[in-house]
């Protein structure tokens, strides 16, 4: 089946890309590796007027160390290149997060920016056009109905980015460029609670880079799937522990992904670990405090009760892993 009718535009640089974005008429969809965009176009979920290819902008390819020791990764870098990059190797949790994405084939194509901006997923919308026609439209496809949570006024489709929890746990900051200049947004604040407008990226902006500040604290990343290999996650966690030497209050990060519309940065459980360290009691308390921070859970892909249990289990497994790393 052919892709929906559209115009394909491939500017040579970021500046030309921003120009094209500003002068475009109609809906523009940015495309990196295309592994998600083309998939959604095949399902007629995306029917943009213009596809604007950003992955080969030279400005988006660089991986470099900044003066303060932070590592800046271009948003156009392929996941395969990042997981093998010596500067990224400083962050084992990040490497694990990049490796967790789909298959080698996909990672040879998919870009970092593309994975972070990955569209949310829902059992009712991520189907063929014929399937959706039979069921009828929903919030995401044009009317005021949600099939996942009948009373919901916003789309509750799940965030599907495997790399986001790992990067948020490392306090990553994304750079968004527009014709007016650049702005930096902490990745933790990049996502919204809405499954449709699920990021704060404005239509005239292109994500150019992701910067990870230096950190010596132990980190871990876990992805739970139905099967190994090429699969979306049931749930993911990116976690960073308190550094070995004490006096690093506020360092613990616990970030759950794929369970709700946005990756969830857990506050109370992290605070418990910051205050009490990685003791068995603190880990129990942190796991117990997890569910309250997730809000309403859906039955999308897995039952809500399973999601609750998985969230607690992921927190416990991540913290136990960090405890072992520090031992």
């Amino acid at each position: 089946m052919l892709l929906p009718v559209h115009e394909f535009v491939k500017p040579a640089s970021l500046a030309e890309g921003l120009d094209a974005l500003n002068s475009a008429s109609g809906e523009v969809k940015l495309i990196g590796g295309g592994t998600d965009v083309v998939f959604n176009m095949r399902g007629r979920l995306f029917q943009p007027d213009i596809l604007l290819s950003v992955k080969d902008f030279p400005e988006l390819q660089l991986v470099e160390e900044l003066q303060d020791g932070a590592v800046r990764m271009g948003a156009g870098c392929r996941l395969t290149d990042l997981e093998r990059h010596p500067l990224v190797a400083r962050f084992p949790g990040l490497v694990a997060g990049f490796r967790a994405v789909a298959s080698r084939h996909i990672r040879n194509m998919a870009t970092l920016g593309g994975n972070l901006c990955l569209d949310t997923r829902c059992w009712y919308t991520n189907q063929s056009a014929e399937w959706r026609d039979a069921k009828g439209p929903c919030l995401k496809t044009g009317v005021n109905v949600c099939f996942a949570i009948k009373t919901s006024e916003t789309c509750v489709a799940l965030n599907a980015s495997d790399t986001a929890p790992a990067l948020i746990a490392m306090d990553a900051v994304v750079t968004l460029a527009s014709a007016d200049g650049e702005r930096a947004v902490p990745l933790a604040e990049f996502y919204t609670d809405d499954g449709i407008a699920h990021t704060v990226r404005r239509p005239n902006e292109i994500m150019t880079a992701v910067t990870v500040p230096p950190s010596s604290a132990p980190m871990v990343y876990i992805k739970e799937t139905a099967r190994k290999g090429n699969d979306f996650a049931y749930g993911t966690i990116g976690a960073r522990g308190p550094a070995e030497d004490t006096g690093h209050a506020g360092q613990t990060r616990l970030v759950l992904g794929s369970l709700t519309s946005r990756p969830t940065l857990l506050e109370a459980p992290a605070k418990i670990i910051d205050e009490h360290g990685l003791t068995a009691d603190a880990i129990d308390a942190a796991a117990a405090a997890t569910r309250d921070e997730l809000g309403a859970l859906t039955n999308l892909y897995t039952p809500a009760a399973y999601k609750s249990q998985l969230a607690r289990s992921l927190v416990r497994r991540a913290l136990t892993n960090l405890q072992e790393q520090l031992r």
Partner: protein
Amino acid sequence: MSRGGGKRVMNLTVNGDDYEILVSPRQTLLDVIRDQVGLTGTKEGCATGTCGVCTINNSNGESLLSCITPALEWDGQSITTVEGLESNGELDAIQQALLSYGAVQCGFCTPGVVMSAKAVVNGNPAPTEEEINDGMAGVLCRCTGHIKVKEAIRHVEEFKRPTDS
């Protein structure tokens, strides 16, 4: 820019041969390889990037999925399809290995398996178990012949001719 995006001429090098092709933005790289270049070895399976039977190699010998990449993204690039592996009528070492180890059943996924396996052994004559799993997890055999495929990859060196790089 008007809606309806017209066709455009793109350059593509397939298996060392240069093509100048009139392509619509609606076509994927797979469509162009099969319908315009006329090489039908590369198959369309799921068409959603899950099954891997549309795998081709880029100029670095890496595996890519031709079904979920817009053709025009590849303007000016060079790719290798399963037809490009043989030389002078002789199969590539990885093809010979797969054949000899009985790694072909119904054969539908075979072009994808061959190109994915080629990417695994490219510059790596003795891939580890982990490297094989990593490179092959993205291509699915519904006849479930994965064990024989892995055996063949492990033994690819035995099938190299002295002239092979």
